[in-house]
């Protein structure tokens, strides 16, 4: 206050600082200490990334990090698969949008400025990562592949709504659905017939292990959750025993068991490949956790919902499928996605436990290469691996928040 009583106007920034950072002596002390630590950490990180870090090891070994020892002769198949998947993803997204328009849930498919901006923000971090990887690439191949993938995705997205909006009768719908479902399977066989599972590696392997396990563990988790609540004693017993048994064992031990102990039961010639075993273990393991999460979701649905479903005459399967399960699943989206993110990161354990040449295993092995031996470059390679995992995990997390909002969790 000035002597005349007129309020002195301080700059808004100063007021903000005062209020939020220097309100009391203790606040000020904390601000100074943590401020100094943060600045030091940021400085160290930035200087590592831009000055002291020697990223040559990443540049030289980029292919190894991304796809492991995948034979060069068949890399083209991989590129075609990526482009195919991009197109398929676009088609699926467009198809779903078309369906929503048909059912009146969405008004139109116009790409307004705000929608374009929204998509840009959503894609920004993965896109930045792809750009970073492309600048590290030493051949034009990845650029061509990425360009083709983007084009394929856009074409798919443009065609999709048309397919979704028209009915084509029940037979036509069945054909479209089965073609859409068959594409990823066909692409998988396209790759795996040329290069067996055990030659896959790098980040591709992490993604593939996680993707397969996610797709497989979800239905299994739902069945186990329903089984544990079943009125049939045997079903309940088996489900409960399974869940408790699996949750009682460390994932690492299960992976080791699958790698070693399977040989006791199955002759070598029949034994599935190491990657297949890893997928089986991840699926069985995560399903047990998913089952408990979903069971929590089932319990969160009020009893009256089931009663109303019965009262309108729905059969028991439909009571569950149309009324209880949809509400249960959306009530526990955050926990489910958390479990799936955890699964994705745990794919690194397959490297150590089973010797799979996944990203972390590659990153750990690179500093021992002849060209880089004794230079202590483990920091660089591990940082790179961490970045890859962070971007994918963060993207999953953000998409889950988006999904939650769209499904209106919380506003009943």
């Amino acid at each position, binding site marked *: 206050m000035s002597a005349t009583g007129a309020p002195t106007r301080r700059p808004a920034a100063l007021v903000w600082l005062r209020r939020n950072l220097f309100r009391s002596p203790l606040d000020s002390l904390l601000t100074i200490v943590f401020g100094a630590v943060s600045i030091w950490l940021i400085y160290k990180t930035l200087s590592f990334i831009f000055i002291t870090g020697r990223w040559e090891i990443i540049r030289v070994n980029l292919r190894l990090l991304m796809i492991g020892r995948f034979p060069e002769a068949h890399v083209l198949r991989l590129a075609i698969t990526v482009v195919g998947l991009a197109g398929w993803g676009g088609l699926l997204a467009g198809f779903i949008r078309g369906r929503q328009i048909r059912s009146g849930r969405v008004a139109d498919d116009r790409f307004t400025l705000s929608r374009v901006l929204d998509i840009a923000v959503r894609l920004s971090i993965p896109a930045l990562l792809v750009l970073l990887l492309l600048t590290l690439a030493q051949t034009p191949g990845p650029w061509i592949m990425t360009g083709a993938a983007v084009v394929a995705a856009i074409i798919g997205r443009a065609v999709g709504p048309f397919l979704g909006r028209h009915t084509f009768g029940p037979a036509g719908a069945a054909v479209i659905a089965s073609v859409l479902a068959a594409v990823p399977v066909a692409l998988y066989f396209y790759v795996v017939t040329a290069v067996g599972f055990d030659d896959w590696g790098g980040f591709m392997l992490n993604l593939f292990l996680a993707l397969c396990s996610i797709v497989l563990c979800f239905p299994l988790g739902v069945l186990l959750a329903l089984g544990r609540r079943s009125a049939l004693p045997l079903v309940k017993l088996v489900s409960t025993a399974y869940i408790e048994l699996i949750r009682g064992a460390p994932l690492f031990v299960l992976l080791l068991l699958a790698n070693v102990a399977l040989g006791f039961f199955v002759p070598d010639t029949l034994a599935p490949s190491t990657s297949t075993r890893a997928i089986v273990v991840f699926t069985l393991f995560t399903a047990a956790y998913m089952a408990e999460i979903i069971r929590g979701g089932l319990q969160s649905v009020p009893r*009256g919902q089931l009663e*109303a479903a019965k*009262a*309108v*005459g*729905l059969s028991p399967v*439909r009571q569950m499928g*149309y009324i209880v399960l949809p509400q249960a699943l959306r009530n526990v989206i955050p926990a489910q996605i958390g479990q799936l993110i955890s699964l994705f990161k745990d794919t690194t354990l397959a490297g150590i436990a089973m010797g799979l040449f996944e990203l972390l295993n590659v990153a750990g092995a690179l500093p021992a290469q002849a060209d880089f031996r004794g230079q202590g470059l483990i920091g660089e390679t591990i940082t790179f691996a961490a970045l890859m995992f962070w971007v994918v995990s963060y993207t999953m997390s953000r998409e889950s928040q988006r999904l939650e909002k769209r499904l209106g969790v919380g506003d*009943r």
Partner: protein
Amino acid sequence: MTDHEDTPAVYADATAMTGSGEAMIELEHVDKFFGSFRALGDVNLKVSSQEVVVVIGPSGSGKSTMIRCINRLEEHDAGRIVVDGTELSNDIRNITEVRRETGMVFQSFNLFPHLSVLDNITLAPRKVRKMPKAKAEELGMELLTLVKIPEQAGKYPGQLSGGQQQRVAIARSLAMKPKVMLFDEPTSALDPEMIGEVLDTMKELAASGMTMIVVTHEMGFAREVADRVVFMADGQIVEVGTPEHFFDDPQEERTKLFLSQIL
């Protein structure tokens, strides 16, 4: 009505119907236990086609349990329950059959929060009656017009007021074209200003000839709409009569006590 002077058991009243005379619902010697607690004891009631029966009584008297037994939300332990000629047994087909013919409106609405208002109504006709989508939606809009909220079709239940939600719930039950409607305290969870709109809907339904059993505390509704009033206490039917008889000239001490407490 039989003469009350020489009526040893009130059940004589309970089984004497008004309405068309054709029995739509029959309860004979129905018992229901929750553990060792007897929720229903030897309940006998016949409801004829197009009759409106209002069930009143203190809380815990078994009113809700009784109507929840009629569509098998609760399983009765002894006696017979017959709905439109189908006796409820453990056979799931019988249960489903009865539920299709029986609409139920709950105290807490129990609309499906993840479905739009229209989808709430069309789900059962489409999945159970195999009605084509377009036809089901036409029916849904008709019913929403009947309950006077066609403009809410695209909204979700959470966006509606309590009174509107309960009217949607009534429309949802009617979509299965039931022969009987059960109301389990349909206005008890509503704010006072919304009770009227729901009761009006129910009055129209009664006037259209629907067979109804209504558990309620709305004595005005009972007096105005009911063909018969059933008074329950401690899991038993204590007294049955026309509204005039029931409110103006109750016979049983228990009934008189209850009426003196609430009126």
